[in-house]
């Protein structure tokens, strides 16, 4: 696939990184040469030092023959221009990053189609949505859906009180449990468990399951202590906070603490009445106590400063808040923050890039989907006719070490994989693997 990415900022370069691993032909355009240096020397792609709003640039970069043009510069109107020009030049599909939720309204979708813009993404909105989702199932660290929810992948931190600890997985399996453990993250390492491995307290366990079984997993993991979230405290009143206030369900009460007085006043105009805006420093403990932090069930730190967010979440945890969410913009801090036990870590670039990536994959003709969960790859294969995988039961397939089949979707219905499951032609199979050349797996399904 030929992909042109305009804008080598956080989202653009992260996307380039994701896509270049899969042998796409990528051209990355940015007028700032210093931004192109790192991706240009590290990744297998072509960089183009020019302004992407120039028609000549787009022509030279091959936007006319591109399968996909992604405009992710910081300026929304510039992104729209790039997409319109590329579409006119002949690009098959275009994606623009915007900063206005109004555009996302389905009523206006045809406007953008008419202009030649196929999809819009609004990173702040996506992050807000992610936060809202994590509020709904507060005991889950991360979750992904496959095939419109036919299969669900969730990451859960298990503690001493979980019921599935210290038993060999093959013994657990005899109880006919409604999930499949596909990966365990323990002390910073991700491992693909085999029958003899056990789940230990403190592990982050990834379950492949179906929506209807979530409550059962909830009980098995000993998460009864998690009360339903009714009160949320957000610190940092930026764009993400505004969007979050909009998408968080009405039955949850939200307080936003903003340090800048002018911004706090501005916020009152941006959010609706049920949101309380407080002018103050979110790091100030007495203020938090005064605002009843002990009675809130969730604490969300969304300031522009990753360090502040991490520390504030730690403090909130100490004060008894069960669910904390920190926005961390620095990639290097993400891993560290995860090990600090803060709950959910959200990175705007990953969310935005991941969204575009997913969108792209959905439209892709390849029978390969891929997403990265902690350090493991989740790959989705469509079993081809006469594929090796369809010959035998999963147990006898002899999959390479470090790979496991999580589940499969047959005719839109999710099926969990067990040793005796047999894959059929046309099934879409979700495979988990660590440190593996996906080609090795591909052989099984083609």
């Amino acid at each position: 696939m030929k992909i042109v990415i305009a804008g080598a900022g956080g989202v653009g370069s992260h996307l380039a990184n994701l896509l270049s691993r899969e042998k796409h032909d990528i051209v990355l355009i940015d007028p700032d040469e210093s931004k192109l240096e790192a991706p240009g020397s590290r990744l297998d792609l072509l960089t183009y030092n020019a302004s992407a709003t120039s028609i000549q640039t787009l022509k030279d970069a091959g936007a006319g023959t591109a399968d996909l043009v992604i405009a992710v510069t910081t300026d929304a109107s510039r992104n729209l221009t790039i997409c319109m020009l590329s579409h006119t030049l002949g690009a098959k599909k275009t994606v623009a990053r915007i900063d206005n939720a109004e555009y996302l309204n389905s009523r206006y979708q045809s406007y953008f189609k008419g202009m030649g813009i196929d999809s819009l993404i609004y990173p702040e909105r996506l992050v807000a949505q992610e936060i809202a989702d994590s509020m709904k199932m507060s005991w889950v660290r991360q979750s992904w859906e496959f095939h419109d929810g036919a299969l669900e992948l969730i990451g859960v931190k298990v503690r001493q009180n979980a019921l599935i600890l210290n038993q060999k997985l093959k013994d657990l399996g005899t109880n006919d449990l409604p999930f499949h453990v596909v990966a365990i993250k323990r002390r910073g390492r991700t491992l693909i468990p085999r029958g003899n491995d056990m789940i230990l307290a403190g592990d982050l366990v990834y379950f492949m399951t179906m929506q209807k079984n979530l409550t059962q997993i909830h009980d098995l993991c000993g998460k009864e202590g998690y009360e339903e979230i009714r009160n949320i405290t957000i610190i940092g009143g930026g764009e993400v906070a505004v969007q979050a206030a909009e998408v968080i369900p009405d039955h949850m009460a939200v307080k936003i603490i903003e340090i800048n007085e002018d911004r706090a006043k501005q916020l009152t105009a941006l959010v609706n009445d049920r949101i309380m805006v407080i002018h103050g420093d979110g790091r100030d403990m007495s203020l938090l106590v005064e605002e009843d932090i002990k009675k809130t069930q969730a604490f969300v730190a969304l300031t522009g400063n990753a360090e502040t967010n991490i520390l504030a979440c730690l403090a909130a945890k100490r004060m008894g808040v069960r669910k904390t969410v920190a926005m961390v913009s620095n990639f290097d801090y993400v891993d560290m923050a995860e090990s600090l036990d803060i709950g959910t870590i959200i990175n705007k670039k990953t969310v935005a890039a991941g969204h575009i990536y997913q969108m792209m994959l959905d439209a892709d003709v390849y029978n390969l989907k891929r997403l990265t969960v902690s350090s493991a790859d989740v790959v989705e294969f469509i079993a081809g006719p006469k594929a090796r995988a369809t010959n035998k039961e999963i147990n006898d397939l002899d999959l390479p070490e470090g790979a496991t089949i999580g589940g499969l979707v047959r005719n839109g219905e999710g099926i969990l994989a067990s040793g005796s499951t047999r894959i059929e032609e046309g099934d879409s199979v979700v495979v988990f693997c660590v440190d593996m050349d996906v080609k090795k797996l591909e052989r099984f399904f083609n």
Partner: protein
Amino acid sequence: MLNFRLIAKILGSIVYIEMGLLFGCTLLAFFYEENDLESFILSTFVALGLGLLLNFAGRNALKVMSRRDGYMVVCLTWIVSTLVGMLPYLFSSEIPGFTNAFFESMSGVTSTGSTVMDNIESCPHALLFWRSLTQWIGGLGIILFTLALLPGISMGGNLRLFAAQCTGPLQMKVQPRIAGTAKWIFMVYLFLTVACAFCLFFWGHMNVFDSINHAFTCIGTGGFSTHQDSIAFYHSHAIEYILIIFMFLAGVNYNLLYFFGLRGKFKTLFKDTEFKWYTLFFVTVSLICALSLYLENGFSIEESLRASAFQVISLSTSTGYCSNDYMLWAPKLLPLLFLAMFIGGCSGSSAGGFKTIRVVMLQKLARNEIKKIMHPNAVFPLRISGQVIATPVKITLGAFTALYFATFFAGWLAFMFCGVPFEEAAVGSISCLSNMGPGLGSMGPVYSWNGLGLGAKWVASLLMFVGRLELLSVYVIFTRAFWKSSGV
């Protein structure tokens, strides 16, 4: 620290490719039924053994290639290829002695074209073919050749390899992915070679063997011939004209040829600063030489034009074919010819030398500095093909120029220590450094380099190696920082 396992693994793949080529030559030797069959069989097996050994050493290699690994691989690639390349020479004892065989092989893979062979006519066909083949592969660059043939070889690290062996100050990719770029450049290269062989066969009336061999060494800008007298052997106008055209093309940046030939972008070619200068230089120097030959050596107009064009393009693309001994020309032409030898072809081509683009950049820089004396506050950009060149590139250019001259002087000095006379040593040093081939006097176009002492041959081999990799890639390995784990 260096990832030795990965390095070994990549070298292993490169040795396998050479083994394949050696096997091809074995078949050829079998076909010609000459006495070199055994030596090729032996060479193939030695290469196989070496490949297996390297692959074994590289088992379970971590697939992470650091910058250091990249440079190390590039340098070792040429050394290993030279060592494998010398095997047939050694085993067949056509070229006696380790030094001579190493010299000939290095001259081959760096596409230099100096030879120590005094008896080329009596040499078996397969061996001559091998000699030309090494130049063909070396001309494109072993790494690029490998990337084109085995795209998956270095697992994400090929970017670094590509960067480390690119010639010229500015990198240019024709396709977003390295593997694609390598493949297309290889296609251009292959097309030129086939076209050249075809022309030599049909219009030059060479036999099949000679035309393929000369196509290899012409497009690889190497200059090995299957005859002791080089191109002069044929006394054929057609052959000389054909070779003039193909040598000229081989000296042009392959990326440009790609845009020109495959995408039909004529404008790219004629807008390219380097191409314009390259053409201008070729035409001017050829005309001056032709005039001198016409007036002073009594050549006819056609003859003088042909001889001068052939010799000038042969020297400036660092091919080193000889149709007419330039030692017999008016001595005042020699500085011009050596300038051609020094400057070389375009960046990104198989030609060696200092590269036209660097001369152009230096010239423009110098002109800007002079203009600055009059307008101290003016900002003069350095523009190449319409693009403004950034300061770091200029600094690298300065460093490269300094190192180039330092290396040239070191080579000159080293040759003289080995007993080579003053002038011959100077020209020999340029000739080796720019992967040219012939030099002056006893190193001249009609002689072989066999008369040199052992020491001088090693000096020459080293200069060729350093020159082919454009100095910096080799010198970086000899810095202390390269070997320190947290080097500064």
